[in-house]
């Protein structure tokens, strides 16, 4: 980026596109020779894409990046410079305002967890409100005494309102469209950093407005359950009814969300039952939502006997790319369903088969096999999952 802001460079800006002086090597020179001269007319730059190379004052310029794209991704392109700008914009503004509850944790607690919680009071499956979830958790989770006595307090909203109003003023100072035509890098730099400051102000205003809205809507509720929420915020881990989550050590505010399979049985080609131990099927909120087993585990749909293996899912399963409550529920269910119902004893599908069909088998399940009249199977304590016929 430092090179782009070099004041000696002349740039050509057309619409949203930034054209930089074209550098040469023999292949580029040859490619330019094969293009007709009409391809270099700067008059064609008005369109959405514009020509790849334009010739301005006898010098060739090549199309590079969109300025809006650079603005959007500047935090990744030049993190140090972006932080500097961010600090400059937030100078004197309330920047310590954070959500009462980490947004991802809120989604896990109030949208994903209710789906997996077992109801004791009735068979009806009605939606749980935040209040119900928190009360349920307080009943089931034994908090340390220091947390149960904790009283919550609501941060004052006045400063936050002032910050939102101040940022709204900054966000209104729009520098307009980028300067067009042949300009120096210095001119572009000035426009770019003004536009970046506006963009940061808009983002921060939206964030603080969301924090403010959250405080106004849920502040009282969170204050009443401050002990439990402080405990969750500090430890970042919880397990209820076989559903749980753990905060990742490597990533800030990212979690592993898991559901236990419980003990279950599968049958092989000859109808012999194999009892599989409990296992935690998890997805990470960081990255693609692909289910995997946390514990060391073996199964026909796992390649090895090791922890942290991704479960072999059907090809048509679209693993969600972004974190969402629906995506996590879908991925966890897909993983557990594959372990329960994926193995067809007639087809012996998967990486491995339960019964030995080869002498040299890398993973065998002989140690899981039990007698057909095993009390656990007969009594129904352990359910055989893969009976399709």
């Amino acid at each position, binding site marked *: 980026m430092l090179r782009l802001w070099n004041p000696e460079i002349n740039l050509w800006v057309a619409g949203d596109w930034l054209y930089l002086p074209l*550098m*040469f*090597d023999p292949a580029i020179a040859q490619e330019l020779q094969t293009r007709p001269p009409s391809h270099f007319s700067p008059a064609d730059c008005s369109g959405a894409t514009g020509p790849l190379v334009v010739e301005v004052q006898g010098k060739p310029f090549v199309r590079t990046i969109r300025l809006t794209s650079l603005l959007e991704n500047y935090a990744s392109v030049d993190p140090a410079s972006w932080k500097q700008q961010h600090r400059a914009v937030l100078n004197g503004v309330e920047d310590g305002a954070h959500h009462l509850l980490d947004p991802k944790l809120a989604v896990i607690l109030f949208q994903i967890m209710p789906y997996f919680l077992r109801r004791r009071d009735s068979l009806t499956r009605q939606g749980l409100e935040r209040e119900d979830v928190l009360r349920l958790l307080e009943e089931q989770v034994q908090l340390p005494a220091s947390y149960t006595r904790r009283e919550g307090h609501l941060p004052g909203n006045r400063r936050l309102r002032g910050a939102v109003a101040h940022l709204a003023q900054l966000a209104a100072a729009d520098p307009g469209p980028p300067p067009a035509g042949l300009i120096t890098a210095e001119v572009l730099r000035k426009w770019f950093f003004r536009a970046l400051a506006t963009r940061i102000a808009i983002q921060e205003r939206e964030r603080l407005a969301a924090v403010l809205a959250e405080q106004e809507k849920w502040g009282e509720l969170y204050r009443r359950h401050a002990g439990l929420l402080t405990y969750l915020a500090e430890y970042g881990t919880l397990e209820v009814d076989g559903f749980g989550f753990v905060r990742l050590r490597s990533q800030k505010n990212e979690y592993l969300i898991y559901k236990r399979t419980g003990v279950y049985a599968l049958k092989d080609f000859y109808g012999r039952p194999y009892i599989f131990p409990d296992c935690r099927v998890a997805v990470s909120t960081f990255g693609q939502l692909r289910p995997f087993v946390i514990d060391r585990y073996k199964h026909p749909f796992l390649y090895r006997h090791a922890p942290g293996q991704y479960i072999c899912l059907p090809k048509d399963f679209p693993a969600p790319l972004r974190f969402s409550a629906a995506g996590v529920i879908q991925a966890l269910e897909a993983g557990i369903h594959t372990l329960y119902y994926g193995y067809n004893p007639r087809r012996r599908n998967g990486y491995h088969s339960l019964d030995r069909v080869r002498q040299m088998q890398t993973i065998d399940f002989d140690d899981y096999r039990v007698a057909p009249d095993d009390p656990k199977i007969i009594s129904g304590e352990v359910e055989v999952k893969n009976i399709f016929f």
Partner: protein
Amino acid sequence: MKLLEHFKQARAKPREPFRRSTFTVVSVLVREYHLEEGFVERLRNFTLGEEWLAAFEPPEKRPLVAPLFSLVPPEEYRLVQEIVAAAESPYLRFAHCPEELLLAGPLFRLNPDLDPHILAGVHFRTLVARELVSRKITALQRLAAGSNSSVPGEFWESLLDRLNALTHREER
């Protein structure tokens, strides 16, 4: 089956080490030594004398730190192309300094079959000296054979031995 054999043959062939293109090497030298149009003139008018041979000391070939490929502005591109055209030598890609750019053409004309390892490791002036001394000794031998007298070239022979030793060190 043919495809399989083709793969086997392709894998069995020793891979050639990556070498930078002539354009990359010359453009790096142009930028590093601030070469200008005057250098092209010097290259066009360059003549190789022999008077320096008597007091010749083999120079060391300094390594060239160059990127894998090079992109240059239009003016510099034209200059590089002019240098490449004026030198008319495939040995340019092994040059590590402006002097070697000057000597690449004469060296190619003296011996167009030099091994890339030698060109990459020995200074072009050393190689030019070896070719010139070798020719000088041949001429002296012819002269001596014509007049039926002994060859008065002990100095040149010892110099050639030194130059050959330097060159063969790189060949090994």
